[in-house]
């Protein structure tokens, strides 16, 4: 729908790439730079590398006594990682106060899909030791080859999965 509107809103001579960003592109770039600024500020102040998926493992170290969850890398980082995660909520709330239209952002993906996909997201990201931020932002910014391969791999399987699901009518 949106795509069609924009296809017709441009002059007929407009090249097809104009439709790469049917919602505009500035908010994407500004948002991305702000994300990187956050990761950069964390590094400048504390020297820490701020991926996001580790918090899902390190927080278990408060409850699970198994050796894996008591490793120093998880135990020693679990408090700042929780503060970092809490910051995410604060930041999105500030955005909502400043730019939200007064109603909450509704997510219309079915709960079972969120939960089931979530299990794979959590299992895979921790097995790979990074996610879209750990490999995608911190790893690529550090010019690490394993992270580049991880990003190419998860992009590929995500493209395939999302398009297959769209074909069978998932949301």
């Amino acid at each position, binding site marked *: 729908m949106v795509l069609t509107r924009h296809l017709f809103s441009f002059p007929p001579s407009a090249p097809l790439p104009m439709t790469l960003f049917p919602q505009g592109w500035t908010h994407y770039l500004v948002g991305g730079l702000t994300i990187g600024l956050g*990761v*950069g500020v964390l590094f400048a102040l504390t020297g820490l590398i701020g991926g996001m998926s580790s918090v899902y493992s390190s927080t278990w170290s408060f409850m699970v006594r198994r050796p894996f969850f008591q490793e120093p890398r998880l135990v020693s980082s679990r408090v700042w990682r929780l503060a970092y995660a809490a910051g995410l909520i604060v930041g999105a709330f500030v955005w*909502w106060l400043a*730019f939200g239209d007064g109603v909450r952002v509704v997510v219309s993906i079915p709960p079972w899909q*969120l939960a089931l996909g979530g299990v794979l997201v*959590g299992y*895979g990201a921790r*097995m790979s030791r990074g996610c879209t931020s750990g490999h995608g932002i911190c790893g690529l*910014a550090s010019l690490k080859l394993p992270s580049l391969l991880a990003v190419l791999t*998860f992009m590929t399987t995500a493209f395939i999965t999302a398009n297959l699901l769209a074909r069978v009518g998932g949301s």
Partner: protein
Amino acid sequence: MLKSALGAGALFGFGLAFSTMIQPRVVLSFLRFQDMGLMLVLGGAVVATFLAYRFVPKLLKRPLLSGSFGAHESVMDHSTIVGAAIFGIGWGITGVCPGPAIAGLGAGSWELLYAIAGIALGALLQGLMAGRSTNARRN
């Protein structure tokens, strides 16, 4: 230290919300090739982070509030790739990844609690499985 992490996280969360990455349908529209915005978000974040990782250690001897700069730990083994493949399947199902799942709560998207519960369960299972295989190797 904690205030730094909170503040840095807030910038991160603001950026995720501003770029609409806290909305799974926008992420899914990227994965279905309908809107390439996610590439700009990732590209912008990587460039800004690259500049920080590259130049902050040249300007400062050590971080402003701690002893030394860390480095991204990078290991190349089959878990890196197999894990990434599994992560991608989940990402393709939900349009949700670990950071935005948490950030979205700040915009009132409480449905994301289902995703957070799933991710936390997945991380728990991964730790239990990894712990078991480590023990098996030790024995």
